[in-house]
């Protein structure tokens, strides 16, 4: 069902955890659909220098969370905003059809975190 890359990120997720005093936090999803993703950011000179996630969700949700943190780390805010859910899925060599809509939200969580960073750091 899942690609090798998905299973790799699912079994060895990168950047799990929280950041103390983050510069930005984003949360998407909700309990009733079974997926909640939370992304924490550190930003220095407009560049994402640290990023962590916590996810309640299925294999796809965890793998996309992990992948998006890896893709965003070291990017500028503007570059990170270009990352789409689609790009994350592609980086994982694809997701099962039925997961494309419900569990593929990690880029949205990243964007929320950036929005939160912008709102609080003007």
């Amino acid at each position, binding site marked *: 069902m*899942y690609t090798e890359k998905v299973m790799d990120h*699912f*079994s060895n*997720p990168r950047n*799990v955890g*929280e950041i103390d005093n983050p510069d930005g936090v984003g*949360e998407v999803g*909700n*309990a*009733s*659909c*079974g*997926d*909640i*993703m*939370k992304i924490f950011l550190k930003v220095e000179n407009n560049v994402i220098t640290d990023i962590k996630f*916590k*996810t*309640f*969700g*299925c*294999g*796809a*949700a*965890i793998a996309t969370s992990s992948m998006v943190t890896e893709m965003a780390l070291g990017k500028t805010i503007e570059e990170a905003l270009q990352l789409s859910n689609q790009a994350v899925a592609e980086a994982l060599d694809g997701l099962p059809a*039925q*997961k494309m809509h*419900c*569990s593929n939200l990690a880029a949205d969580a990243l964007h929320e975190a950036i929005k939160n960073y912008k709102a609080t750091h003007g």
Partner: protein
Amino acid sequence: MKRIYLDYNATTPVRPEVLEALLPYYRDQFGNPSSVHWAGRQVAGAVEKAREQVAALINCSPAEIVFVSCGTEADNAALKGTVDALKAKGNHIITTAVEHPAVLETCRYLEKTGCRVTYLPVDADGMLDLDELERAITPETILISVMWANNETGTIFPIEQIGAIARRHGVRFHTDAVQAVGKLAIDVQQCNVDLLAISAHKLGAPKGVGVLYVRRGTRLTQFMHGGHQERNRRAGTHNVAGIVGLGKACELALAERETHAGRVRELRDRLERGIFEKIPNVKLNGHPTERLPNTLNVSFAWIEGESLLLNLDMKGIAASSGSACTSGSLEPSHVLGAMCVEVTLAHSSTRFSLGPDTTGEDVDYVLEVLPPIVQRLRDMSPLYNCRQQESCAGCETLKKL
């Protein structure tokens, strides 16, 4: 890798004795039982023998056994056949909110064709209120359809009492016994059952065969139209090998059910005790006592079911979950929903269903592997030990636990 199968409610391996019994019917005795020549005669007897074996297990007469293709077909045939045959009498069906989709989706379809369906609620243990059932009966009621045991939680309904209510009101009674047959003692006479569904692959026989028991005198419009098979009650060439296998599995179940059930219950209880001892914040889904001896459904707070299953799977353990991600729909289990299990906990529900091949070692292995997996997923969950509990929507709902 070790492979531990704890998903017997989903399907079971074919038992060696069953495989041995059915194998000759592919090549040596491959005839069509409707044929009059040697090739047909050979197998017609085998089909009739299987009919007797099934009948013996549920205490009915062989003539009341109709072979069909699966449990789903048995349920469809029972419900649709009754609605058509009894349309002059009424159009009201009483069922429960926790039936298998084979009954529920059929009811939803029948609603579109003009039937009225009462879906009885259940309590937090998944149990029915029999007074409520009796009150739901109207002069229009043509059928009560209540499953014998629930596939997700294992909760067992009081079928004998429901049968008595049905008889008192002169209402036909169908029971989906797919999860009960082979696990519990079944007596259609004692329980006043008119229609009963069996699926072979839940009791060590092959997929692709099932039974609808039809009490003598029960008028039912045919579901599958065509040839004269099954005395005009189900058209289509007999799945001879499957039928022979089901017969054998029923014979074995009759002889061994009690012993197996005792063994399996002990193992299930050991698993249950171990989980509750080793892992905090676990909720049992289903009735504490009125439950199939092989079934354990639990929710591990703060983690999602599919990710738990995948982790177990990586350790060779096969189980199942009521999370939306494994149900094929967008919603988590309708059974847990009907029991008012909080939605996050429904997503984290996990079902372990044991079988005759399950060993004590299997259980110990699960108890060794499971706690660290749960902990690891909890550590990854934004709902667990959340630092912003006050502002976190996800945490709100979980405080109830």
